[in-house]
């Protein structure tokens, strides 16, 4: 995800503002993706490696619903961007449904099995969903019909893409929603399940239902972040494309940095990784000869490695208490 080409603004301050927005936007995307990972991890204690494939499936759903079927638009009038957001919700719901089916078929029977086995099941799922989604996406280039397209606006001398604002807004909404969700009855039940599955069962919490909810919400988040990551200034330029399936892996450093089981960690980790990547890309560009083209994509992993040396469970992750 290379971002906007390095457009040099008029002066250093404008360049800084421009970079700041770019970093905030990328950080928000990472945080969104990380939130999907964290939600599923919190309920099931498993990293869902299929998140990227689900994201690709989500973008495909959106282009089918919005572009091919013209779904809200064929029934209701009103401005186009309202239609797009309704289609976005529908696509997220469709992906959430897919997540539900996957959870019921492959994850539910694994309750109580070693977490690693479950993680590898999601690796297998990743292969299946990715190949199916590749095949679905690749027949024709699928446009997502993003209402703000490639438009930008200016703050002082700095160019800011509307997609940046959209990504930041979406992430803020998602995190507010999650924060509220954890206060509800179901949210508390999910936290209890994350703490101890057996104890939660003994309290009358349906662990299976919590799994299902986490997978549905996690998949929907994957779809949303996948769609926002496909917007014009970033790689695929408003299309559903194969790259989408691999973008989620780039958010893994953010997940680990923040701690696998912390929603706040996902936010902070995502922002740190986003800032590190974008700022390194902007201000170390003159050393590209030494660092190699595309070095900024490796920055997240380096940051993650350094952080893990100091804090093995991430910044906000719960320390595992190990007993004999």
């Amino acid at each position, binding site marked *: 995800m290379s971002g906007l080409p390095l457009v040099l603004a008029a002066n250093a301050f404008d360049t800084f503002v421009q970079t700041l927005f770019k970093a905030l936007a990328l950080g928000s995307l990472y945080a969104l993706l990380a939130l999907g990972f964290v939600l599923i991890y919190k309920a099931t204690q498993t990293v869902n490696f299929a998140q990227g494939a689900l994201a690709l499936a989500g973008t495909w759903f959106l282009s089918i619903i919005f572009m091919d079927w013209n779904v809200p638009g064929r029934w209701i009038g009103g401005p186009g961007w309202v239609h797009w957001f309704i289609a976005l919700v529908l696509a997220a719901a469709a992906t959430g449904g897919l997540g539900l089916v996957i959870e019921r078929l492959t994850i539910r029977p694994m309750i109580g099995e070693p977490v690693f086995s479950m993680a*590898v*099941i999601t690796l297998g799922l990743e292969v299946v969903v990715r*190949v199916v989604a590749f095949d679905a996406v690749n027949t024709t280039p699928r446009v997502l019909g993003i209402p703000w397209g490639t438009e930008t606006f200016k703050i002082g001398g700095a160019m800011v893409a509307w997609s940046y604002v959209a990504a930041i807004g979406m992430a803020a909404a998602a995190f507010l929603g999650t924060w509220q969700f954890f206060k509800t009855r179901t949210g508390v039940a999910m936290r209890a399940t994350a703490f101890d599955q057996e104890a939660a069962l003994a309290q009358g919490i349906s662990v299976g239902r919590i799994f299902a909810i986490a997978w549905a919400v996690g998949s929907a988040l994957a779809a949303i972040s996948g769609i926002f990551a496909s917007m014009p200034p970033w790689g695929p330029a408003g299309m559903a494309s194969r790259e989408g399936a691999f973008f989620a*892996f780039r958010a893994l450093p953010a997940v680990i940095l923040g701690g696998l089981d912390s929603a706040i960690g996902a936010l902070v980790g995502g922002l740190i990784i986003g800032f590190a990547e974008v700022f390194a890309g902007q201000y170390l560009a003159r050393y590209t000869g030494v660092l190699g083209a595309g070095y900024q994509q490796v920055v997240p992993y380096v940051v993650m490695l350094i952080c893990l040396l100091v804090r093995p469970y991430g910044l906000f992750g719960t320390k595992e208490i190990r007993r004999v």
Partner: protein
Amino acid sequence: MRGRPNFYTSYESESQLMPTTTKKVLLGLFLLVLVLMPFDLPVIDQIPFVRFLGENVWLRLINRTMTFAIAALGLNILMGLAGQISIGHTFFGGVGAYTAVLLGGKGSANLWGWGLPMWLWLPAAGVVAAVVGIAVAPAAVRVRGLYLGIVTLGLIFIGLHLSRVFPEIAGPGALGRKWPRMELRLWKEEEPILDFSRDGHWFWFDINKNQKTYLFLLVVLILMAWMAANLARSRTGRALQAIRDRDVAAEIMGVPEYRYKTTAFAISSFYAGIGGALFASLSVQLPPEQWGLIGAVNFIAALLIGGMGRVSGVLMGSFFVMTSHRFVEEIVDWMKHQVEEAGTFSALFDFFISTGRGDGGVVSVMETALGYPLPVSALDDIIFGLLIIFFLLFEPQGLYGIWIKIRNYWKGWPFSY
């Protein structure tokens, strides 16, 4: 004790690799079949499964499988014995392969390569990979479980980036560069002593390059498998298993966790390096993306499908992972022929094979077709993913577990326990 195979009187006899005569004889026969498999011999050609594996097309695949199996044996030491999750095994394979090409490859104006002989680049590939493994270990030992998995995943991306930073080693374009052939020279002389990559004449036989490579790789694989099996029953192996079962308990009993985890990383990377170098040498030319995530998933799949922690399981799993694609293709091909020529089963397979758009088949007859009637390559990827899920859900012990169940059935017969 003679005649009582399950009666052990000492620890040594229980941990023997070959406890019974039956096992020795069967393994001997199996090895004999393996050695003779690629040749057109009257008896070997009658054994049903072996008959077609000796053909050149299959033999090339078997050769690749063996290099894959060498690296998978390494991952088995790390994951099966020491219980450390690694999704970055291909990274170490890549380190080995690029060491090999740096030492053994041909240099030019913008490519580095010193043209050294194989007896140097092959062990060096393993050693350099092991050193890199040791270098990574301090970071990897501190983190546990899935955190470790993702850290090792990060290695892959860092490795891919490094291959872009050093086009002198990795080759400039998307095609990658050419690896040294498998041939034994003393030093840089013109004629190699032994050449495993050209057709030739050994003793009184004509032997083609695939058969030569096969024999060479078979020797290497047997050596490596034997070493891996022995490692599991050595002091180091027991320490690693103690750490796998409960690391805190192991440390309390005086097993230095840090040192043994580092050892596990080093040994596993050594195997990966050797396997990677041989694999690359076999494939002649490879892009850096070869050492990416998909390969790493294949390794994990091989371990899970075969059965983690057992050498025989890993070998079975490697065979399964590497050949399943080809088997699916062959089966689909056969189905296609049945449909096209209106064979016995054509009515049945017509539901499955799509000969044109809109006849409800799942698989397209076109090789490169995209979209809903799936191309065969997509189908075998999907089947592969489903198999991983299937094995984890229904047979966590893998192929090895199935084999144990079958064996125990006959062992206890006519009783069911």
